[in-house]
């Protein structure tokens, strides 16, 4: 499951709490010691805050969309873990895997040591069962014809068509024990209060609505990696109270948004407090509704994109934490896929007022007497930029864009409403333009598919759940099909380059910046967190790589 760190945190920054961030910023920059857990305590639990859950409800069902944090990180495991920073898959429950020549069979070889927390061995049967259950409960995997256990350690997936991105989706599905789940009457409605998993920390030692503790799995199959006694999750109803705990030194690892992080967090103890925001999150777009004039004209889309000052967008809107996008649209997570011949010659993602003006003139959108441009038919033109009002960072992104547009004579208005209203407009296609996240995944396939494949384009009036800007390109379809049909890396690279060229040519959306994968830590009590120099995982506590961190960090000696 690909998650965009920015949009989540943005959506969660409650309007009510923004006012207080000023107050808190002032508070916490003072000399605060208070109840800070400064001393390294023996047997301390790795403490992690969750700013988006005022209270916890006991639900460790990995199929549930509302499973508790750490369900998919500490309790259940995947066959491999994809690390977006290094762009590599780390073997986990599976030791090796391969795709057949025709691309229709994917085989995983499980680690024979793998065991469940109740001591039973984890076998290929469990994996095959998990996929049938996942399909039944939550759908998805529509390309998967069957999942069979060839022997105790070998799982064979048969696909209904060659589909190379399947490897990553199959490999990153969390696996559940068959002997437990086949006894569950209604898996969709199960809350799984005492989970049996294969992960490092599966024992629910304490549970209250405000916090819960997970301690060691007594039968962990990689017992040598259980270096810490356990994990403690804390519930907070917003960024500010969570930040208070974090800046006060009471949490060890966190990934909520901290404004002015150098001053409020790091400055208090620069030797131990660190943050790392690799720009590998999904690309954030300014999408233009291509079913409406003048946004159906590629010249207009490119001109508007040229008018946007991305450096200013990133600096003002994202506190400098993000990385401006180029004309391939690819985020920093896809650097190995980026075609330098395309990226090196980007024109329409470079800020250039004169070029934008010229392009808009050429597109037949002349400036009127009041200095503002009109549509080709002479009617006044106003660009409405939709954005959810709760996302204060994206709101300032939209404001910067509006100012940039004014500089080229385009009248723009930021239309900030509740996210529900904004997304409803995106879905039914009634929006004008808007700030939006994009699809993610280990390969660029999902990104390009969601941005310019014709099969994701819904007819007018139909509800869309992706490709809100409703742009499809037949050449892109072909390149996507070519990508999906081969598991050969150089052939995939070729298709990806083709996709980048089409993207550069058609400008289906206006890419703004790569979202950062947020994360910060305080190594007073625990050491070994991933860093820029040792990027074995990201610092996202709710990402797939979290288990790598949980099995690496050690109590400070």
């Amino acid at each position: 499951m690909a998650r965009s760190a920015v949009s989540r945190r943005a959506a969660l920054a409650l309007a009510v709490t923004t006012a207080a961030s000023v107050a808190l910023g002032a508070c916490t920059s003072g000399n605060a010691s208070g109840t800070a857990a400064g001393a390294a305590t023996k047997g301390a639990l790795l403490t992690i805050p969750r700013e988006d859950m005022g209270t916890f409800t006991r639900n460790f069902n990995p199929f549930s969309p509302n499973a508790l944090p750490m369900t998919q990180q500490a309790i259940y495991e995947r066959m491999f873990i994809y690390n977006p920073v290094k762009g590599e898959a780390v073997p986990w429950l599976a030791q090796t895997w391969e795709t057949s020549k025709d691309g229709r069979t994917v085989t995983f070889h499980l680690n024979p040591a793998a065991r469940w927390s109740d001591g039973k061995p984890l076998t290929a049967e469990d994996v095959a069962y998990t996929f049938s259950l996942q399909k039944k409960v939550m759908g998805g995997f529509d390309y998967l014809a069957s999942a069979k256990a060839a022997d105790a350690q070998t799982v064979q997936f048969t696909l209904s068509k060659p589909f190379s991105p399947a490897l990553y989706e199959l490999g990153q599905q969390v696996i559940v024990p068959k002997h437990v789940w086949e006894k569950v009457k209604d898996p969709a409605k199960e809350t799984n209060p005492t989970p049996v998993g294969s992960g490092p920390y599966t024992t629910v030692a304490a549970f209250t609505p405000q916090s819960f503790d997970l301690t060691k799995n007594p039968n962990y199959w990689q017992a040598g990696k259980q270096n810490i006694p356990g994990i403690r999750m804390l519930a907070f109803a917003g960024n500010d109270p969570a930040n208070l705990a974090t800046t006060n030194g009471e949490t060890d690892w966190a990934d909520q948004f901290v404004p002015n992080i150098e001053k409020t967090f790091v400055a208090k103890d620069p030797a131990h407090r660190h943050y790392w925001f690799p720009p590998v999150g999904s690309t954030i777009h300014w999408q233009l509704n291509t079913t409406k004039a003048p946004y159906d004209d590629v010249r207009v889309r490119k001109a508007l994109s040229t008018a946007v000052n991305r450096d200013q967008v990133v600096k003002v809107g994202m506190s400098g934490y993000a990385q401006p996008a180029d004309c391939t649209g690819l985020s920093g997570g896809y650097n190995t896929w980026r075609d330098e011949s395309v990226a090196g010659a980007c024109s329409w993602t470079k800020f250039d007022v004169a070029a934008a003006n010229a392009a808009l003139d050429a597109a037949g959108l002349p400036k009127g007497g009041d200095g503002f441009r009109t549509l080709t038919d002479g009617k006044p033109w106003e660009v409405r930029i939709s954005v959810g009002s709760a996302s204060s960072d994206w709101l300032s992104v939209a404001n910067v864009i509006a100012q940039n547009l004014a500089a080229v004579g385009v009248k723009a208005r930021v239309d900030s409403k509740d996210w529900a209203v904004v997304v409803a407009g995106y879905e039914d296609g009634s929006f004008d333009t808007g700030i939006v996240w994009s699809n993610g995944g280990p390969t660029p396939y999902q990104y390009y598919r969601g941005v310019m494949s014709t099969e994701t384009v819904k007819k007018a009036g139909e509800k869309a759940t992706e490709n809100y800007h409703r742009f499809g390109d037949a050449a892109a379809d072909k390149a996507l099909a070519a990508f999906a049909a081969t598991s050969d890396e150089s052939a995939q690279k070729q298709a990806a380059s083709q996709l980048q060229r089409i993207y550069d040519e058609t400008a289906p959306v206006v890419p703004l910046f790569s979202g950062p994968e947020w994360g910060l830590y305080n190594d007073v009590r625990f050491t070994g967190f991933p860093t820029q120099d040792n990027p074995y995982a990201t610092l996202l506590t709710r990402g797939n790589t979290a288990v790598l961190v949980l099995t690496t960090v050690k109590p400070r000696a």
Partner: protein
Amino acid sequence: MRFVLRRLGFYAIAFWVSITLNFMLPRLMPGDPVSRMLTQSGARLEPDQVEQLRRLFGLDERPVVEQYLSYVASIFRGEMGVSISRFPTPVSEVISSQIGWTMLLGLTALVVAAVIGTVLGALAAWRRGGFLDSALPPVLVFVGSFPYFWLAMGALYLFGVTLGWFPLRHAFDVGVVPEWSAPFAANVATHLVLPALTIVLVSVGGWMLGMRNAMIATASEDYITMAEAKGLRRGRIMVRYAARNALLPSVTSFGMSLGFIVGGALLTEVVFAYPGVGYQLLASVQALDFPLMQGIFLTITAAVLIANFLVDLVYVRLDPRVRVS
């Protein structure tokens, strides 16, 4: 008895109106819970998975009238459905796991504020122009008009972070197991002080002014002069003659507030990370979690109506005039 019956009839109608509004308002909001969930998590799902989620959550495509009838029927069966934002936990479980903390915080703050405010108000009115009367109301009104968030953050920073007198968050220490014991109660009490104190600070002024004004009005009544002429003790006149009558409006507002504490103290819960239904309500509105929203609104409605009914009954005891008319 007829009075009680008439009141009951009135409450039945009020209840019906509120559950109907409760049904309609969430449905007037744009969007649906699944797309809401996608926005918040930023997770991308295949279209068929989105459909699957809609089915799983039991999002109705039936005609509104039919939905309404089954909604009313389920209320009378005491079923509130399954929460969507906390799927698959039943709404009743989500609410019951938190309402205890909400009640504890709300009730403590309300009782303390009402008692202190009323006593101060009575004393201030009785010694008009005295120190209490001239100094306290402006101060309390000044404090009460601070933005609550600011006041709470300030108190949290001063007493929690800088002085370290009180814990910074939560209803009890993390890692402590809830149990019926003196040490646990003490733990809960220390966690309760700051949140309750901030609510008392902003609300006590209102209670004091209300009581003071009512008291001044009663103090100029003829029967007070009469009581003084009879030579009764000042204290007795103040408490038994003036305060008892001046108390009536305060009882009304106490009853109203009693009903509203079930709704929770949203900002308090946010600042002090205090578990409670107030934040839950906000979260359910943001997630368009219809069943949970309805469940919490229903609880609030029921609490307000019950509290009002109780106040009506108390009124009959306190004020003989109600019995007659």
